[in-house]
């Protein structure tokens, strides 16, 4: 099978999986416990790493841009630059990349193990659709959690930038000036655009992870390969989608 055929087969399979999962949406009320469990895994357990990473990304952004803007005498715009970069781009993208690495890989490993060890077949013989109890709760959970993760990433990134501006003497932009310039140019549209991106990235990551897991055949080696494949595909998908969503939102 050629790479191109495999690529289109994968896309078709993801679309089919999403369609089947969403067809069970009316029964989601009966799956509240599973959705809460997934919210915990997707949201709560990912929050610490998102917080740490965003803080330092905001900080590094302020540091790098601070030095460059100083050369043009425009250091008062550091807040604007960090604020817009985090809200429109880095917040949602970083949250999605961490989701792919931390949650996407775990989802693929779990579903691939279930597939290889015939638990998925057992569900099918019980007339329980795997899409209903394995995929749909994860999609709903990511839809609920992704905006929270993105907002945390954005706000913590802003704080990281503020701390660097305040305490790194060679930048010398105080807290008030930083937030004043951040507020001056940042619009609701910027933040909403970031949240829309985060939602789309989140669904993409979960669908790729579930699809790769449920298509796994073989043994432990194939489970490992599936996890790698899911993470790589998710990362590529995030960056490709990022370009097109950004184009659409501009």
């Amino acid at each position, binding site marked *: 099978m050629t790479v191109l055929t495999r690529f289109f087969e994968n896309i078709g399979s993801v679309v089919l999986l999403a369609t089947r999962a969403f067809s069970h949406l009316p029964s989601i009320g009966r799956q509240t416990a599973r959705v809460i469990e997934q919210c915990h895994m997707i949201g709560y357990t990912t929050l610490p790493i998102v917080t740490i990473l965003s803080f330092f990304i905001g900080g590094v952004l302020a540091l790098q841009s601070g030095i460059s803007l100083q050369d043009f005498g425009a250091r008062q715009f550091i807040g604007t630059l960090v604020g817009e970069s985090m809200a429109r781009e880095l917040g949602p993208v970083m949250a999605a990349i961490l989701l792919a690495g931390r949650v996407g890989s775990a989802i693929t490993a779990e579903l691939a*193990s*279930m597939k290889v*060890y*015939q*638990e998925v*077949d*057992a569900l*099918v*013989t*019980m*007339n*329980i*659709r795997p899409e209903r*109890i394995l995929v749909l709760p994860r999609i709903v959970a990511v839809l609920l959690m992704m905006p929270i993760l993105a907002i945390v990433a954005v706000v913590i990134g802003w704080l990281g930038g503020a701390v660097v501006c305040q305490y790194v003497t060679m930048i010398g932009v105080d807290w008030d000036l930083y937030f004043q310039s951040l507020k001056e140019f940042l619009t609701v549209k910027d933040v909403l655009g970031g949240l829309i991106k985060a939602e789309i990235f989140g669904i993409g990551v979960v669908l790729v992870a579930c699809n790769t897991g449920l298509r796994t055949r073989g043994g432990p080696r194939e489970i490992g390969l599936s996890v790698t494949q899911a993470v790589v595909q998710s990362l590529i998908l995030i960056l490709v989608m990022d370009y097109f969503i950004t184009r659409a939102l501009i």
Partner: protein
Amino acid sequence: MSSTNGDRQPVAIEVQGLHKSYAGVTVLDGINISVKPGEIFLIMGPSGSGKSVLLRQIAGLETPTAGQVRIDGMDPSLEETRDKVALALVFQSGALFNSMTVFDNLALYPREHRLHTESVIREKVMEALQMLSLTKAVAKFPSELSGGMKKRVAIARALVMQPQILLYDEPTSELDPIMGATIAEIIASLRKEIAVTTIVVSHDRDLAMTIADRVSIIMHGRIKTEGTPDELRASKDPEIVDFLNPTINLENPRFRNMEASNE
């Protein structure tokens, strides 16, 4: 479990001209089987002969390359058939849900299909566990169970489904002789206690000769012979005789000739 299987009746299974191949390699080649309602039908054959593949076609987990499987006249791979006919498959590995306790494994089917209230589900699950002497394992996870217990839990999970068709894939493999005999007793007892059509895939000769109504032997993807255990015992076909009563010949060991016979 009550002596009847709720209001569900056992159903017939028909396999007609079934072929199955993977990437051009034929695994099953023109299989015809007819299983009567309530019968225990055993499919035997050497390892790699296609027994488990045949069971997956019957369970509707895979679709045949050619030919057809019909359960009560319906295609088992269709969701509508699964809605109408309760079919349970006891997997060779058990295929228990590792993230769930034994209780939750058994309760999943009635809960998901909203068959009973939670208290009735508890009652039915405990009844099934009691039937298989597993009540002490109710709160355990599959990883805490022995091989024999896993198989019994898998059977108990199938029982809670009140199946009309019960399929077993190598139920006695990897078990000691006593546990193997126990599983055979369970399979035979269940036929008496619940009305169910049973298909067992195994290469356990004792199991076949003791509990089966009819036995079919598959070799190289084809049915070599079919009959009652007594008819098979009386068979003069050297391959059948050798399969059912293999002798250990140290002077001319089989493995020396295996490659040649496979070619």
